[in-house]
């Protein structure tokens, strides 16, 4: 791989000698380095890609090799701090088993092949499959870590050139309900406030999010805020006691899946105590009722189209009757007094309140509704879209918003929706394809897509930078679907994963800043990054692979991007989809100059608080302080969203709630972070956390192995008692980074019918202790 220069030769000697148990031989190397001198690092700005916060990092490059990291003091999100993942992130590029050559399955085995040959095969199979089975028999499943430009190219190739809406990404698993919640309440996606809210808020309410582990840098900023102003309160609603719980002022434990009911109860109390901001509600809010009985997405084919019925204030008050705190106390386990206290914090006109929530709330069969319900609280008390007053949905993925804007989702086009004719016309015009070539019917959301693969309606699937066959719920079902004989699976990846196991072709992928691109983190911040490192071997960017396949398919004229400014050309083309002020994107040169720009950005002016006419250039001052321009009536919509029980709750056979989620050390399915020595050594394997009393009843000891069994499958895993978090009785927690403990195998493949986001956070399990000898 690397030429064996003198330094690496000496280094190898050093290693060799170390293994033969001699110390001190590395000294000459040290001495040589000293002579060559250090201090020649070049520091370059890069957004971190290992969660949804989008921290600005400075990567130290020595002769083009990334050798060190520090937090970027200029980055508005993290202000110079990072977390263990960020500090060690450059090592994700250098795992020992990095895929550097194309692999093609021959006689059942993946064997190395020239990249050009593999791309020929991919485009041949793509063309053949379309010819034999129609354009809807091919699909692409991308990554929420895609650069916006990658997502845009995938949408252009599949939606524009091939004419199918079979385009999905892992953003569907992380953030679809967040996006659908924003779209239904405000008419547009993209969060309302920004990280600056943290400097203004007096009360933070963390709603089912273990912020200390999933978004550690944001959590540190919350604690900084509290240190600067001891009157600040941080309150947590949680389904288990975690590291976050120990650092916050109050932790309120509740049963899984009851967040929506608690939010409605808070609204009930706000209304009953007359804490409603009447002027705000009269001017800026409309009330809507949607359909109920939407099912649980277990066998759906497409997203449910929401039909909004106008209702009035009295209907809303009547709807809330059911959610008296005393009733919700029985449902959720949070005391009525606590609910009233929460409501009083939201209702106090002198306190600014910021609510944060994350994937645990989105990953629910009623995820979209739960998002709506949290916006309802903020809308009722008028604490929204102003500094410190912010409902903030976190996504866990740095590209989760952007890939949607870029058009990589079954129901979206760049800057619009496939179902809207004007959006299709604009896409056809920008892309230079006939408008009737674009399919008007939304494609299948992720689970439906894999069910089509199972049935054979989809026969060609290109998976890029994602690991669906490690993290789809009811995993084994979809692994079998992917392994079928006459399905052709292409995987563009940097490391071997459970997904590459079933691939017919593996294309080596460039990671992170091995290519140029743009991310857009949790606060609408679009960040550009240069290509700073050379990918190993034959590895190339996802964008390059898409363009090469498109050219081989005969779509070269649609993908005529050339030269080193390729990414800029793609971005400028994509920006044409964002011409309206409410969606305007910054130019590449604007992006290059600063650590990110908060979108929408009109004429160099970024938007810190959306819909606030003082801050948002797209909001009209004629409408008062706020203009919710996403909906045609310029109002934000309060939806009447009833609580419905979980699809699968514990019962005598499967008596425990299983919760899955993230840990600080790892991200996603661990395919990157497990290749980083510091992170891997800190947490090499998944575990199941069990309440101490439950463990006693089961006769379990700490670190004994158990089998977790659900209706769909089982895994063996080590039990931990009073470890980093403590679940309440009847709840167990398993992190999902470890492919050796494919916990998603146990989950139910239900999904939110409105957003298509799978319910991958909770299900019912039983625990079978294994003989202590084996553990």
């Amino acid at each position, binding site marked *: 791989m690397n030429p064996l220069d003198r330094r690496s030769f000496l280094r190898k*000697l050093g290693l060799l000698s170390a293994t033969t148990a001699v110390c001190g031989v590395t*000294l000459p190397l040290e001495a040589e380095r000293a002579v060559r001198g250090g201090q020649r690092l070049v520091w370059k700005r890069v957004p971190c890609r290992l969660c949804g916060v989008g921290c600005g990092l400075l990567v130290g490059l020595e002769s083009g090799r990334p050798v*060190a990291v520090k937090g970027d003091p200029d980055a508005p999100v993290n202000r*110079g701090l990072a977390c263990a993942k960020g500090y060690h992130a450059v090592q994700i590029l*250098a795992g020992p088993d990095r895929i550097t050559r194309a692999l093609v399955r021959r006689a059942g085995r993946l064997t190395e092949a020239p990249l050009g040959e593999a791309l020929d095969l991919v485009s041949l199979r793509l063309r053949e499959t379309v010819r034999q089975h129609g354009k809807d028999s091919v699909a692409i499943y991308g990554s929420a870590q895609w650069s916006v430009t990658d997502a845009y190219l995938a949408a252009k190739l599949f939606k524009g050139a091939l004419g199918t809406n079979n385009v999905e990404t892992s953003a569907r698993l992380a953030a679809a309900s967040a996006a659908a919640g924003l779209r239904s309440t405000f008419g547009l996606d993209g969060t309302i406030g920004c990280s600056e809210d943290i400097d203004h808020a007096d009360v933070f309410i963390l709603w089912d999010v273990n912020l*200390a582990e999933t978004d*550690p840098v944001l959590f540190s900023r919350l604690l900084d805020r509290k240190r600067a102003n001891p009157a600040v309160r941080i309150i947590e609603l949680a389904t288990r006691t975690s590291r976050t719980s*120990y650092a916050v002022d109050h932790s309120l434990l509740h049963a899984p899946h009851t967040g929506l009911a608690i939010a409605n109860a808070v609204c009930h109390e706000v209304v009953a105590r007359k804490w409603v901001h009447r002027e705000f509600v009269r001017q800026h809010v409309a009330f809507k009722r949607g359909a109920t009985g939407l099912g649980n997405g277990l066998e759906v084919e497409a997203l449910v189209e929401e039909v909004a019925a106008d209702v009035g204030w009295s209907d809303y008050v009547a709807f809330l009757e059911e959610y008296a705190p005393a009733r919700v106390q029985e449902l959720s386990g949070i005391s009525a007094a606590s609910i009233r206290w929460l409501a009083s914090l939201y209702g106090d006109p002198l306190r600014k309140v910021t609510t944060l929530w994350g994937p645990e709330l989105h990953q629910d069969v009623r995820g979209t509704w739960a998002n709506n319900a949290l916006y309802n609280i903020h809308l009722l008390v008028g604490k929204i879209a102003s500094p410190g007053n912010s409902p903030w949905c976190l996504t866990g993925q740095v590209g989760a918003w952007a890939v949607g804007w870029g058009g990589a989702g079954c129901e979206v086009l760049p800057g619009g929706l496939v179902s809207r004719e004007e959006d299709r016309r604009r896409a056809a015009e920008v892309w230079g394809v006939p408008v009737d070539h674009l399919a008007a019917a939304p494609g299948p959301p992720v689970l439906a897509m894999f069910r089509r693969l199972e049935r054979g309606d989809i026969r060609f699937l290109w998976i890029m930078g994602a690991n669906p066959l490690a993290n789809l719920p009811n995993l084994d079902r979809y692994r079998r679907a992917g392994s079928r004989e006459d399905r052709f699976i292409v995987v563009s990846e940097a490391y071997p994963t459970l997904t590459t196991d079933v691939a017919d072709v593996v294309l080596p992928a460039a990671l992170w800043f091995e290519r140029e691109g743009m991310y857009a983190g949790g606060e609408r911040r679009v960040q550009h990054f240069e290509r700073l490192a050379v990918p190993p071997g034959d590895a190339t960017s996802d964008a390059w692979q898409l363009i090469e396949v498109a050219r081989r398919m005969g779509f070269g004229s649609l993908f005529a991007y050339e030269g080193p400014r390729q990414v800029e050309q793609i971005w400028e083309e994509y920006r044409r989809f964002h011409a309206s002020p409410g969606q305007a994107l910054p130019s590449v040169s604007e992006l290059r100059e600063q650590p990110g720009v908060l979108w929408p950005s009109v004429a160099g002016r970024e938007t810190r608080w959306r819909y606030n006419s003082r801050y948002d250039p797209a909001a009209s001052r004629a409408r008062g302080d706020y203009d919710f321009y996403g909906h045609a009536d310029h109002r934000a919509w309060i939806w009447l969203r009833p609580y419905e029980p979980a699809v699968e709750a514990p019962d005598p056979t499967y008596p425990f709630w299983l919760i899955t989620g993230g840990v600080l050390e790892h991200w996603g399915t661990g395919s990157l972070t497990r290749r980083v020595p510091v992170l891997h*050594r800190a947490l090499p394997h998944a575990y199941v956390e069990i309440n101490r009393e439950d463990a006693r009843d089961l006769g379990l000891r700490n670190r004994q192995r158990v089998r977790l069994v659900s209706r769909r499958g089982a895994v063996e895993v080590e039990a*931990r008692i009073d470890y980093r978090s403590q679940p309440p009785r009847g709840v167990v927690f398993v992190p999902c980074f470890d492919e050796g403990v494919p916990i998603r195998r146990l989950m139910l493949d239900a999904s939110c019918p409105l957003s298509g986001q799978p319910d991958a956070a909770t299900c019912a399990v039983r625990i079978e202790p294994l003989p202590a000898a084996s553990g």
Partner: protein
Amino acid sequence: MSTTGPPSSGAALGLFLVAAGITAVAAAVVAVRRGLSGRPREPVAFRVPLPVAPRDPIRAESEVFRTAPGMLAIDPAVGPDRPAHPRTLRTVRFLRAFPGAPPVIPHPLSAEEFRTVACKTCHERGGYAARFAAYVPLTPHPERGVCLQCHLGVDSVMGTVEADADPSARCPLCHGPSGGAARPAASVTWRTTVWPRLPRVAADRDPPPIPHDLHYRENCLTCHAGPAAAREIRTRHPERANCRQCHLALEAAAAIFRRPPGIAPAESGGGP
């Protein structure tokens, strides 16, 4: 790039001799080159950027004057350098993946300590910890609350070892399960840069400049004074607490400091 398996003992000896030979030659070459380049030439310019004072008072200047209670306390019975585990620059590097990386935690934590991130109980105050038979290094940024956000330990002893467990339980953390070297932060396929060294200055007695950046490490004394400081970088005059009166940051390091927001560039006197 694949590494071979462990060689047989005869081959190992042969390899070792070859390796040792080549290493010796390399060492000699390096030593000669170093000697040549170390000859006194013109004063210093020597690739070292000129030391510059920060253009404005840095955020935590006052912190430099703060000495944590107990920081300089030395248990009269125990010298600062334990023979078994002297804390030296080698230790400092051993625990970090690259210069400036947050060090990993080389000792066990009880479940309670791990869950509640109780690190500052010891690391904010310093002093002698009988539990580890060692002086406690101080954190230069005690204002940061969630230590485990950046500093990770090793799973096998995190949150499971009782606080009063046998200290020998922690040996494998650094020495590997079989006693060999296992650098907690090392990677076989990734290497970092040169560790910062003191650039040579015009005269021997000049106060050396600061060779690393100061982000989250503005309080010099936490690492450079007291019994827990690494031997080579322990200051001989801890009583002179205003370090940057004499020791100036290199330009690259100083460049991270910013004027407080609200001051227009014109008022700040410009600068490069």
